[in-house]
């Protein structure tokens, strides 16, 4: 009996170490990633391995050519990302910039909520970094430019009535309601006419549903989207027209629009 118990305990020891070593989904994107002055050449070995990862897991939606025309694409809403244009909705970098490696890793690791893009964190960091490298082969943009430095996100001020009131004023000034509607439900007068750069119909986000944002539902995620925009969509960057304090107020106002659970 004692020997059996010892056997089980010895077997459990490495398994405990495995559990401790498992890396949870990365939500925090480093904002200090150093920008590279020039485009980086691709790592051929990573590209080769990333090609294999892509063929197994990604090709059905994003297609052989990375153009978002995989065989499952016609049935998917929103449409899979077209990598050939080098345009990415979710970035920590300024509008018009390529995303950083960590941005792409974040999308792969966390997934995009309420889309067909799941979390691929199961595959492990090595495979995900390999496929990030491979994705860069689809667009010449990666040969022509380097990702800019991630935007800086200042510490969040207190979310109080004053901040929310200021945010409401910003909401009005920027005419957010024209797309997102007066109550933030995504039913603004322009909402039904919006299309993305690929001509796909696109709906403004319904903020009343609360914590179900594709690009993250934390305060800093909202701040980031306001200041970087969502390239390829009608959602612009307001980095030029908002001060950090105003952007935080807008975050607080948008968060106050939540009034129902989905």
């Amino acid at each position, binding site marked *: 009996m004692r020997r059996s118990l010892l056997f089980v305990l010895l077997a459990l020891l490495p398994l405990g170490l495995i559990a401790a070593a*498992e890396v949870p989904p990365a939500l925090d994107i480093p904002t200090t990633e150093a920008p590279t002055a020039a485009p980086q050449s691709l790592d051929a070995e990573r590209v080769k391995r990333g090609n294999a990862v892509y063929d*197994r897991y990604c090709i*059905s939606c994003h297609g052989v050519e990375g153009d978002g025309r995989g065989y499952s694409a016609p049935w998917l809403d929103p449409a899979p990302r077209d990598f050939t244009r080098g345009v990415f909705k979710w970035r920590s970098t300024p509008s018009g910039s390529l995303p950083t490696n960590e941005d792409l890793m974040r999308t792969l690791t966390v997934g995009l909520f*309420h889309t067909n893009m*799941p*979390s*691929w964190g199961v595959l492990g960091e090595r495979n995900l970094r390999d496929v990030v490298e491979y994705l860069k082969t689809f667009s010449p943009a990666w040969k022509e430019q380097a990702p800019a430095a991630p935007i800086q996100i200042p510490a969040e001020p207190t979310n109080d009535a004053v901040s929310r009131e200021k945010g409401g004023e910003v909401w009005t000034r920027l005419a957010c309601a024209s797309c997102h509607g007066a109550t933030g439900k995504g039913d603004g007068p322009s909402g039904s006419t919006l299309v993305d750069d690929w001509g796909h119909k696109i709906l403004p986000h319904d903020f009343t549903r609360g914590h*179900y944002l594709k690009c993250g539902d934390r305060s800093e995620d909202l701040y980031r989207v306001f200041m970087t925009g969502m390239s390829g969509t009608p959602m612009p960057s307001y980095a030029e027209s908002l001060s950090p304090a105003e952007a935080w107020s807008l975050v607080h106002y948008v968060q106050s629009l939540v009034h129902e659970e989905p």
Partner: protein
Amino acid sequence: MFLAAPFRGVISAVALVLAPALAHALPAFARKTGLACSSCHEVWPRLNDFGQSFRDRGFRLEGGRDAPIEQPGSYWPLAMRTTVGYQWLRQALVATDGGTTTTQTGAFGFTGLDVLSGGTLANKVSYLVTYTPGLTGAGFSQGPQDGDLESAFVGIHDIGGSSWANLRVGKHAIDLPIDEHRSLTLTQGYNVYHFHPQGSAVTYEPGENQTGVEWYGHSDYSRLRYSISVSNENGAPLSGHWVSTPAVWAHLQGTQYVDNDLLAAVTAGVFGMSGWHPTAFQVLTPTEGTAAPVLGTGSSFKAYRRMGAELHLTFLSIVFPLTASAVAFTGSDDAGLIQSGVRDGQFVGGFGELTYTPSLRWTGIVRYEQIRNTQAGSDAAPLATGNLNALTAAIRHTVEMTSRTELAVHLEVSRSAALAADGTAPSTVTGLAGFDFAF
């Protein structure tokens, strides 16, 4: 159709060999998620790590679109699978009135049919139903079979918000080192999952789905998993215990990604079970009949146990892996469970398996299995009776594997030989060439 008795014997043997082969693979999941089958299957139907995680999470991607209400009304989670083709069978030392002979036959047919429905009933509630219809006068078996619900369970997931607390209730697959229901071989399963010491009354086989409850949990990426399954012993007479013929199976498995160019991952695990089988019943003897046990009166439980360990080395990459697996298994049945038993019946066994998937199209597999009795429960037969050697090799070419359908050309040959009480070792060689497909 009338068949000569010896031929019926041959065919029955084929049916037995093929019976556990068909299993779960659900194109319905791929249609729901848009993902290719290759996302979840190293090679269909074997799961890769992403597929294992999807299964552990209760057929959910956890991206906000798992609940049925998120799907178009036209989506209907149904799938089917079967294998059609030609099977060749050669058996040595087959008994006939004229003495033993070697038989050889071949037949066109199919292996059976699985009709599956699975998915979510609510955001954190899953289900799976697998119906295998009775197929009279058709298939390789050429004989009637009983229809059966191979699986029927409801799963409740992330209880208390933790992935370590999940529950399946109903007929479910036991968590095994390598899932026989997703075996890459079609003519021979994993014999050790079905082995019993000679003369044992025990009917519990971990390779068969069991009716009961499974409590299981897993880490975020299913690199560490555990499962505890409490079930009734399939086919055993009902006892007077509140769980008639209780059997408890436990499995703990961990995977570590190594991430170098040679060794990609290591998986290790331990498993074990204990079951209790009644050996005494009150009986009822009908007029001019023979005594029959009265259901619900079983008592004098005797125990049987299985335990073992597993090691899987994944070489090259987890994407297109070369996997070497070794599973060791021991078993012991109490003397009271063995006909004319004077001591516990014990055995050791296991298998080694090499699987290589160099691309999405090709997979090769070789498996060698050996089982040895280490202690005979009775003196009625030699210790070695039932000792088994089996070798199986298969090549599988996937023709189509999209988010809609799966189609593979399957070529396989297997040989097994089990020692008989007279010291001979009748062998069976089976060849199969066919199309394995699911929709």
